């Protein structure tokens, strides 16, 4: 298969910027990695999951969904060029697959699909994870995949769009995917196993209320877990009035806030710290499987990195399995 260096791939990306709004993993001023445009920082394909959720390109933290002026309502417009997003991990691709379902069933969310429609997704996997870790190769649920063999990236198209783009990439040499695929298949599944086991225990009602209160004691409600989770979809809608102009905003919300579920009557089904700590985990591990047929944590690990209190989903599931398994 075709193989390219990072520089060769960057050259290819530069050649398609007139057709696509290209977003790539870049290193920012102090080395923090983020999803930016070419030229906004050095391209850094290696390093694994970006700290922020890549699904934010389609569902950003804050956006104006419509603008009202007397006699004129303007809805959010689709971008001029479709997005080409590089740097998702295979776990992120799974998250995006869920997001596409969430924003389409039963209600089709135009604001999301304005950006998502026509977008090209490029997963990065292989021997380029943090601390030399191997990043799992995707299930093919993306357009194009760059699988690192440690020196170059094997270019693997998964869709017609991906094949079309692959054809336009200069060939930096031939490489075989097979050994990399075997390495990927041999990766451990501890994270997934832990989450699955914790989910079972919760569904069997084996996790007592006291456990969630213990988490509630520790949680400072920074909301970071929700804000970095690629499958958290909750948002708040409100209007900003500035003279005769009204902007309707939507803003990521968080189930770790007491205002999240508070009803107009004053009643709040999530009125305690413990119930809010439970809600996040329960939703992904119990409620979503009932609603969507699968757990909606795809093991990206971001909430474990972002939580100042050490309450990421992996840490919590490990505790559940240790204590109640």
């Amino acid at each position: 298969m075709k193989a390219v260096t990072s520089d060769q791939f960057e050259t290819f990306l530069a050649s398609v910027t007139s057709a696509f709004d290209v977003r790539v993993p870049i290193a920012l001023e102090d080395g923090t990695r983020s999803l930016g445009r070419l030229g906004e920082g050095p391209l850094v394909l290696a390093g694994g999951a970006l700290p922020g959720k890549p699904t934010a390109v389609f569902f950003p933290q804050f956006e104006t969904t419509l603008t009202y002026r007397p006699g004129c309502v303007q809805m959010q417009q689709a971008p001029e060029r479709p997005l080409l997003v590089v740097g998702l991990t295979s776990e992120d691709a799974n998250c995006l697959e869920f997001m596409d379902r969430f924003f389409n069933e039963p209600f089709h969310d135009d604001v999301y699909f304005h950006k998502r429609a026509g977008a090209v997704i490029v997963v990065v996997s292989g021997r380029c994870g943090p601390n030399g870790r191997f990043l799992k190769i995707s299930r093919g649920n993306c357009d194009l995949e760059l699988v690192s063999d440690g020196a170059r990236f094997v270019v693997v198209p998964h869709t017609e769009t991906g094949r079309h783009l692959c054809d336009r990439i200069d060939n930096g040499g031939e490489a075989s995917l097979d050994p990399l695929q075997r390495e990927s298949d041999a990766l451990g599944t501890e994270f997934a196993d832990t989450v699955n086991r914790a989910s079972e225990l919760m569904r069997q009602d084996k996790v007592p209320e006291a456990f969630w209160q213990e988490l509630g004691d520790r949680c400072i409600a920074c909301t970071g877990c929700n804000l970095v989770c690629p499958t958290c979809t909750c948002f708040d809608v409100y209007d900003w009035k500035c003279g005769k102009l009204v902007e309707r905003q939507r803003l990521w919300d968080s189930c770790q806030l007491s205002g999240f579920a508070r009803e107009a009557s004053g009643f709040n089904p999530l009125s305690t710290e413990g119930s809010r700590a439970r809600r996040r985990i329960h939703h992904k591990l119990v409620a979503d499987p009932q609603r969507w047929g699968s757990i909606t944590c795809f093991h990206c690990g971001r909430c474990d990195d972002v939580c100042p209190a050490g309450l990421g989903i992996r840490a919590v599931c490990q505790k559940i399995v240790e204590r109640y398994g």
Partner: protein
Amino acid sequence: MNRTLTTCPYCGTGCQFYLVADDAGRLVSVEPSTEHAVSRGQLCVKGWNAFEFVHHPDRLTQPLIRGNGRFEPAAWDEALDLVATRLVDLQKRHGPDSVAFFSSAKTTNEENYLMMKLARAAFHTNNVDHCARLCHSSMVAGLAAAFGSGAMTNSISCMEEADCIFVTGSNTTEQHPLIGTRIMRNVLERGAKLIVSDNRKIRLARFADVHLRPRNGTDVPLLNSMMNVILRERLEDKQFVASRTENYQKLRDVVAEYPPEKGAEICGVTADEIVRAARTFAEADRAMIVYSMGITQHTHGVDNVRSCANLAMLTGNLGRPGTGVNPLRGQNNVQGACDMGALPNVYSGYQKVTEAPIRAKFEEAWGVESLPAEVGLGVTTAIDAAAEGKLKGLLVMGENPMLSDPDQNHVRRALENLEFLAVIDIFPTQTSQFAHVVLPAASYAEKDGTFTSTERRVQRVRKAIDPLGGSRPDWEILCEMGRRAGYAGMHYDSPSDVMDEIGRLTPIYAGIAYDRIRRVGLQWPCPDRRHAGTPVLHVGAFKRGRGLFSPARYKPPAELPDAQYPFVLSTGRCYWHFHTGTMTRRSRLLDREVHDGYVEINPDDARALGIRDGQRVTVTTRRAEVTAVARVTDVVIQGVLFMPFHFEEGPANALTNNALDPECKIPEYKVCAARVGSAQGAAYESRDV
């Protein structure tokens, strides 16, 4: 998209994040720095929401001049000329000290430096101060006397290295969340001991080995009794005391008056609790003290600080990682505003205005003939002077004394009494309502500069977007003001030039320049451009030579409960809001979380008074009566009420007592006498825990 690395504008922890602006130049999110030593890819809820208020429709975007009883938009030239002319005119008629300047812990180091230069060089007065007067002036005075330096002795990383942490008067997980969680995880995951002294059941108290719940204002006897136990059981660090301290016998004599039984009686805790706390602290290899407003905001705040310093010295817990006396600064740049000399008694770097050689240095550098030699008015004493008619003019930058200073009616009278008031701010405030001129400032996201965090780390603030509307950065406004007041020494091309001047005149900042803090901030003292900064102060020796034991005796608060006002009212902040709410109340999720003033009351007290949770009540002191929503909770002990001061709808500082510490003039926000009762026509309001 544009991502700009900058420093959080809320508490003093000093987290760094990227402000993300969309292609239209609108801030749309925050991304924490994963590489920053404090943030490590994490933030608290305020940090995550620190972009939204910037574009709020309420932003001031053009100068306003009061005419015919209301504000009219004005051109910058007209407004600036008016401010300078009126202040100069007042000085001509009433003398240089008839005007005062309130600087701001929200603004940058460069702006604080320029404000104090404006006051001193352009307006020839030392009447310059900022809100550190209200929060940590007692710390600056107390620790400077004991150690020679009024700042946190250690670094935030030390929170993870301590074997015992004594948290007193700091609700750390709420007010410095990324420091609080370090303490929590050190306790839960590394096994450090935790002592909490706070009669509120704060989150950290849930993990404490010893939770002391002393009466408000009894910190000195509590600390004295702990030291009494340490000496009685010979747990003191004899070598440290002998080699590094002085005035030890005096400490022994005073502490001997406070056996734990006596401390227990004064404080309302048990002698056993005091003994356990003392042993736990003294037996640890590395023990640190963490404190905040619960220690400082008292009429004996300086004595409280001295007592903390005494305990640390007695047990040899200074000058090493994982130890120290660690006051947590409450605002993004309150440390820097102090460092910059936005204080009535010192220039930048705590160089005293009363010392002639220091004045001569600044006179030469600033090109002025004789700088004022008398200590000026502080925030609290300036308001008093205005109320008495002695102060005629006031320029306020980024402060809101109507909500933040004690006794709001007194502040209102003072502001109404001024002949001229000018306010520079990003939003209209309760204070700007009284102004004759309001100047619109750029927010932290719209300008360059530096903030200095609680661990003395000088960090960059960067312009992410252009100033909104016609607003301008404070540093530009101040320079214009200086020029229009007839002073030619305030022309700079950029804040970087200001920092270079600060470095030339300020020994502890001499090694700090923008090219050195591009990625990582430096911790002062940083005496030259090769110096790597100072994470831990007083290693081997104190700045003043030997540490000075300064024992104190118990002095009760100025106003205690009586038959008419049977409760102690204590005030502070809540997690969701920041100070007078100017920014957080304009952040959707934060304001949704808590959107009205509340008062915490113990369930037994509530039952006795027939007060239900969520009910609207009146809280009354000798100064005022306000309404608030009752939170019936065992967070507070019987006999104590707690109110946050963020809310203009129920301003806690209408109630507080303007009684000041005689040494540093900090008000006693933590104790006054109050009563509480059901409000007429009360409506039920729900709340969560």
